[in-house]
């Protein structure tokens, strides 16, 4: 009897699966024409408002109400985005005017989507990323709402909201948002944070200064993203990076990032430490040695060349490889390397020869 009941239950599930497949198939076939209809209908209304703007009139309040009412539904917001996307290149002045005049709608929608499920909130943030600059919304009015989006425990919603804040280009908001995302509820990869910060549309110097002021309030994970970001934009933080470099209690990745910083911005005080890292033969410290050897490519002097030649004898493959590349950057004369080429260390010799070969292949490519 129990088995029969199970067969019936599974039969019911199968039946519902068939119905689902059929209904979904039909809906899918209809979805495109329905979206096109929405776009056409919306386009007509927007065209009228464009005419008004061209004639020097403001956007009709009825139109604003209409947008508020319709774009609360995500499919209409998608249609609206499609239309705006298509017009972005055509009529820049009228288009910007239109976006400026519908600011109240955007604000209304920001509040409305904040209460919706995460995916829809994520889409609204994406919408904002695209039109942030054009709408010129007073920053204060939308910042609190976007920060609430960052608070949501959904990866994409957070990333999209962060991107929208970067697009608005307000330093305080971005720092605040970074602090919120640091709550450990959702992991955001440091690459995403760094790339996001690089897309910031405001003053990078100002943002870096603010981030550095609050540096110790961030987790190591976010600190690493900030350090990497600073490396791309500013050579003014040598003193601060030197402190990280010298502090053995600091996280390994942070110190490695600091070494990379001095690979980009040379500094006499850092050179000593870089040389010490490069000379360190402890296999447990190979990552420091490797990054330091790479960074030494930008430093000149006989001690640097000698250290790099010595690093060619390292027991670690990566250190040897980086040393060969850095020596190449120093344009060391072949006669200076004869002791390695003719020496007993096969590993050092092989690495040097390999690097010479690949350099030739790369040159041949141009």
């Amino acid at each position, binding site marked *: 009897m129990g088995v029969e009941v199970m067969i019936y239950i599974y039969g019911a599930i199968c039946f519902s*699966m068939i119905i689902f*497949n059929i209904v979904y198939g039909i809906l899918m076939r209809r979805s495109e024409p329905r979206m096109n209809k929405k776009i056409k209908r919306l386009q007509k209304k927007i065209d009228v408002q464009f005419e008004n703007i061209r004639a020097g009139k403001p956007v009709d309040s009825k139109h604003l109400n209409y947008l508020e009412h319709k774009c609360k539904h995500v499919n209409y917001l998608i249609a609206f985005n499609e239309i705006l996307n298509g017009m972005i290149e055509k009529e820049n002045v009228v288009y910007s005017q239109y976006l400026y005049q519908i600011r109240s709608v955007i604000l209304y929608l920001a509040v409305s989507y904040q209460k919706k499920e995460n995916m829809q909130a*994520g889409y609204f943030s*994406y919408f904002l990323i695209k039109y942030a600059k054009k709408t010129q919304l007073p920053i204060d009015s939308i910042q609190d709402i976007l920060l609430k989006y960052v608070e949501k425990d959904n990866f994409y919603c957070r990333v*999209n909201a962060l991107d929208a804040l970067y697009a608005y280009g307000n330093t305080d908001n971005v720092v605040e948002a970074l602090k919120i995302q640091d709550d450990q509820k959702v992991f955001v*990869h440091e690459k995403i944070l760094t790339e996001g910060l690089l897309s910031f549309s405001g003053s990078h110097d100002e943002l870096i200064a603010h981030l550095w002021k609050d540096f110790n309030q961030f987790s190591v994970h976010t600190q690493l993203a900030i350090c990497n970001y600073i490396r791309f934009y500013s050579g003014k933080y040598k003193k601060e990076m030197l402190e990280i470099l010298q502090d053995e209690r600091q996280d390994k990745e942070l110190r490695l990032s600091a070494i990379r910083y001095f690979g980009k911005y040379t500094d006499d005080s850092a050179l000593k430490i870089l040389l010490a890292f490069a000379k360190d033969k402890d296999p447990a410290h190979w990552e420091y040695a490797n990054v330091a050897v790479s960074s030494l490519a930008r430093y000149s002097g006989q001690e640097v060349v000698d250290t790099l030649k010595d690093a060619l004898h390292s027991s670690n493959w990566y250190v040897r490889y980086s040393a060969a590349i850095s020596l190449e950057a120093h344009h060391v004369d072949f006669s200076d390397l004869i002791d390695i080429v003719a020496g007993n260390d096969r590993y050092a010799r*092989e690495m040097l020869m390999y690097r010479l070969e*690949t350099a030739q292949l790369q040159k041949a490519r141009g």
Partner: protein
Amino acid sequence: MTDFFKMIFDYIGIFFILYLIGYSSFLFLSVTVGSSTLYQVKRRNKLKNELHQDYYVPVSIVVPAYNEEVTIEASIRSLLALEYKLYEIIIVDDGSSDNTSAVLQNAFHMQKVSRPIQRRIACQQEEAIYETYEFKVPITLIRKKNGGKADALNMGINASKYPYFICMDADSVLQYDSLEKIVRPVLEEGNVVAVGGAVRPCNGTEIQDGHVISYHMPSKILPCMQVLEYDRSFLASRILFDKFNGSIIISGAFGLFKKSVVIAAGGYDSSTMGEDMELVVKLHVFCREHNMDYRIRYATDAICWTQAPESLRDLCKQRRRWHIGLFQSMTRHRRMLMNPKYGLVGCISYLYFLIYELLSPYIEIFGIFTIALAFAVDLINVPFMILFFLIYVLYSSILSLTAFFARIHTIDLKLTPMDVIKAVGLCALELSCLRFILAWVRATALFGYKKKKNAWGKIERKQIKFR
């Protein structure tokens, strides 16, 4: 005597009822969860819940090759067409007896170099190394002594420069956005050590620069049935296992791994035939024994197109190989079974693979013998048996089609009415005939398998329609 048979059949009946309840419940759950996940992913993408900027995690693609002169050039060209910036391609020619290396050298103007290789995992000696920098990304060809696929992969890992590597088959084609999609879980979660890609049969599909330009059900019956089987058995179940970090298989045709963890775990095991499954199980064991916080993910939208065998002989060869690999991995890591130390991987994944993958062919064949015996002693209700079989075929067909259509709907592929007719007609044939043929093949796979250790499982290849 009849009473004795009756008693025996009663016990067998109870066993099969429990077995089928377990199997059907799993199948229903996996197809339901799998399909709903696919629809959810589609909605997520529609609502732009995705990464909009280029976040490039550097990746080394390792392509082990053995006698692949027919397909290798097209495969490497497809890799060069990938929409990704930071990667390198490493082809390891495992001592091919054909012109695999020569084809590559000529096609990509490769030059011999004296590259030193860091041996962090044991593998056979290299014979020659070639490199080229003429293309979008560096390409390296390593020709080494024959040592099997696992050994070739280990060589590729040793030679790779980046922190993540991808293993793939030389006869497969990656979709243009597959690298971006397979890397995404690494950016979404900080503890990902491996990501499995979705492997799909490309028979009947035309691919241009990694884009599908026409999709049809294959013209031959056998690959057609495999398309349905892939969706029901592989796609759906892997999505379900992914929900609780329980995936113990990442197909050798397309998977991404964190190099440092793979090296720490000892790399691929060249003494097994199913090196792909063996590595994933080994990673579970390694991470759990070292109390590491880890995730093994499955990326449903990272797509790799591969050739499904078109002849029954090749299909049997492939399945025999898979079954031996399964047997080797499961016996090697038998301590995982129901061991709380290994969490849900030991209690659900291992148990499922043991009962419904490793032992299922024996159980199914035993079931058929029991039916024959019961028929001989007149202890079977034939009309009920036929009805029960038809219910099984009907329900399983519906599940196959649900998984199939979920995949088709969610990647916006358009099928012709002929394709739909083929799918509907052949799923019943696959469940009522092919399944039992393959059960027999798998049941007999273990006879004399030790002789075939380290051999490359080759099936007849055609040039992929890649333009």
